[in-house]
C-alpha cells in the first residue's frame, strides 16, 4: 500500500515535470481581436489605448468589456467603424500587426532596401519592443551609426549578427515577426531620424554587467535604455 502511494506520487511528479518542461508553447495570435480574445497582441492594444487615455483598466491581455469600449471610442475618434473589434484597419491605426493580415504592401519586395528594412525592424522588435517609440527609433539609429563607424561591421546584417553584440539576437528573438511599430521605427531611422544624435551603444542600467559601458559619455536616456558613444 505504502509502495503504491510512493510510486504514484513519483509518476505524477514526473508528469508534472514533463509538462512544465514544455514551455515553448506560444499563444497563436488571432487574426481579429474581439471580446474574449487573449494574448500578447491584446496586451499591446490595451497598452496603447491606455497610453492615449481611452482605456483605464488593467493591461492583462484579456479582451473584455472595458477594452471593447475603449476600442469603440478610439475607432469613433479616428473615423473607423466603431464596432469594438480590432481588425486590419483598426490595427493599422493602432500601429500593430495582426498575424494572418497581409503585410502592408511591401513593394519592390526582394529589393535590398526592403530586406534591410525588414532586418532592421526585426532587430528593433527583438531589442526594444515595449519601449517608447522614440527609444525604438534610437535603437535602429544606433545600428545604422555602427554601420557607418569604422569600428564595427559595414553592413546592417554584419552589425546585427555580430556575435555577442545584441543579446536579443544571441537568444534568437531576432526571428520573431515584428510589428508595424518596429517597422515604422526602422524606416524613420533609415530616413535620418536619430534621437540619440550619434550614439554607438545603449544599455539597460538595471541589467547591464560590463563595467566598461558605464564609463562611456552618455547622450540621452529614453525609456529603459541609456544611449552613449
Amino acid at each position, binding site marked *: 500500500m505504502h509502495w503504491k502511494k510512493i510510486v504514484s506520487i513519483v509518476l505524477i511528479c514526473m508528469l508534472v515535470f514533463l509538462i512544465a518542461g514544455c514551455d515553448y508553447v506560444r499563444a497563436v495570435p488571432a487574426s481579429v481581436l474581439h471580446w474574449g480574445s487573449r494574448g500578447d497582441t491584446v496586451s499591446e492594444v490595451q497598452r496603447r489605448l491606455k497610453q492615449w487615455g481611452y482605456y483605464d483598466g488593467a493591461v492583462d491581455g484579456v479582451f473584455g468589456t472595458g477594452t471593447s469600449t475603449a476600442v469603440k471610442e478610439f475607432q469613433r475618434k479616428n473615423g473607423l467603424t466603431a464596432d469594438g473589434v480590432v481588425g486590419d484597419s483598426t490595427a493599422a491605426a493602432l500601429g500593430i500587426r495582426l498575424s494572418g493580415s497581409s503585410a502592408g504592401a511591401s513593394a*519592390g519586395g526582394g529589393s535590398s532596401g526592403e530586406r534591410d528594412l525588414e532586418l532592421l525592424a526585426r532587430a528593433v522588435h527583438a531589442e526594444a519592443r515595449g519601449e517608447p517609440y522614440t527609444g525604438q527609433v534610437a535603437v535602429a539609429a544606433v545600428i545604422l551609426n555602427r554601420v557607418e563607424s569604422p569600428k564595427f561591421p559595414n553592413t546592417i546584417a554584419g552589425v546585427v549578427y555580430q556575435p555577442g553584440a545584441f543579446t536579443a539576437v544571441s537568444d534568437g528573438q531576432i526571428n520573431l515577426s515584428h510589428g508595424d511599430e518596429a517597422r515604422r521605427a526602422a524606416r524613420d531611422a533609415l530616413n535620418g531620424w536619430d*534621437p540619440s544624435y550619434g550614439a554607438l551603444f545603449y544599455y539597460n542600467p538595471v541589467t547591464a554587467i560590463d563595467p566598461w559601458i558605464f564609463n562611456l559619455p552618455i547622450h540621452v*536616456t529614453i525609456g529603459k535604455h541609456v544611449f552613449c558613444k
Partner: protein
Amino acid sequence: MKQKWIQYALPILGAAVVLGGLVTWGIKERQKQQDYKAYMDNLYSKSYYELVGHVQNIQTDLEKLAISGDPEQTWILLSNVWRHADSAQQNLGQLPELGVPGSDMSKYLNQVSDFCQVLMDRLSQRQPIDVENQEVLDTLLVSCVQVVDSFSAGQPPQGEDALTTQIEAPYQAIQQTSIEYPHIIYDGPFSETRLSPDLSHFKGEDVDADTAQRRLTSFLGDGYTIERGTDTQGDIATWGFYATPDDGDGRLYCSVSVTGGQVLTLLWDGATPVSAMDEEAAYQAAIDLVADKGLNGMVPQYRQREEGMLLVTFAYQQGEVLCYADQIKVQVSLADGRLMGWEATNYYLSHHRRDIPDPTLSPGQAEAMLRRGLAVMDRQLALIPLETGEEVLCYEFKIDNGGQTYLIYINADTGHEEEIFKLVENEKGMLIIKNTGGRGHWAHKSQL
C-alpha cells in the same frame, strides 16, 4: 498474493518506461548540443584562420607597394590590399567580441581598405602616390606587422571544450599586445577627422531651457501642450520636450538645440493617422509648413507615402545650385496635413552662405562625359557632400537606361564621374538605391 504483486509491478514498470524515455531523450539532446557546438567552433575557426590569412596578405602587398615603380602594378597591389582588408574586417565581425566591442583592429582594417580605395581613385585620375601617401602606407605596414605578430603569439587550441577557449586564447593574446594603430587623416569616410560630426557651421548663442521652450511654442503654434522631456548631451546638446496636441492620440518628441535654439527634431509617438486626404494636398501642406518656418530656398526633392504620413525631403538651393548637405525632412499627416515629423539636424549642421565658383565645364561638356547612348531626362547643378565631408560641384543628370532611372553626378570642374544613384519609383514614392545598408543618398545621409 498474485494480485498484490501485479499491483506493485505495473506502477514500477510505468515509472521505468518514463524514466527510460527521459534518459534517452536527454542523451539525444546532449548529442545535438555537441553537434551544434562543433558546428559553431568550425565557423569561428574558419573566420579566425581567414582573418589571419588576409592580414598576412596585406603585409606582403604593402611591402611590395613600397618598392613597386609601375602604376599598373601599383593599382593591382592597392586593389589587393583593399580586398584583403575588407575581407579581414568582415571576418573580424564574425568572431565574438571579448571585452570592449567596437574594436580598434576593425577600425584599422577599415581605414586600410578605405585609404587604398582613395589612392586607387586618385590613380584613376592620373594622380600617382606621392611622398605623403607613401608615408601613410609605411605607418599602416608597421601596424600590420604588429597584428601578424600578435596572431602568432596565440595559436587556437584544439580540444573538445573549445567553444570559448578556442577563441579566447588567441584573442586575449591579440588584445594584450598593445598595438599602436596610427591615426591617419585622409580623404575618406573613415579618416580620423570624420569620426565626430563637423560642427564648424553649427553656430549661435547658447539658449536656456525656457528660451528653447518659447522657440518650440512659436514653432508649433497653438493647439499643443508642451512639457519638459529628455535632454541630450554629447556632440549635439539639446533641450527635450513633449508636445501633446489638444486633439490627437500621442505626442511629439521634440529636441531644440542648445547652440542657437533651433528646432532640430520632432518625432511622433502615437497613433498612425488614417489616410483621408489627397497626396498632392499633403505635399503642398509640407511645402507650406517649411516656408512658414521662415526657411527660404528649400526645394522639395523626394516624397514617400508611409503608413498614414507623407515624408517629403527638402534641400537648400543657393542660386542655381542645389546644396544637398542642407537637408530637411518633413512628415505630414495624410489625415489632415498637420506636422508629424521634422528632422533638420543636418540642415543646421551644414547650412552656411557658400562661395560657389562657376563651373569650369559647360553643361554640354559635362554631358559629353557621360557614357554614349544614355537618354538624359533632366539636368541640375548640385553641390554634393563627399564621404570626406568636402563638397563638390557637380552636374546632376537624370538619365533613363532601359526603363531604369539613374542619377549621375559629373564633377563640374574635372568631368570625373563622382557618383551614380539608382532611382526606383514604386506606389509609395521614390526609393533611392546606392548600395545595401546604411542611409544611402544624400537626401537621407546623416552627418552624425
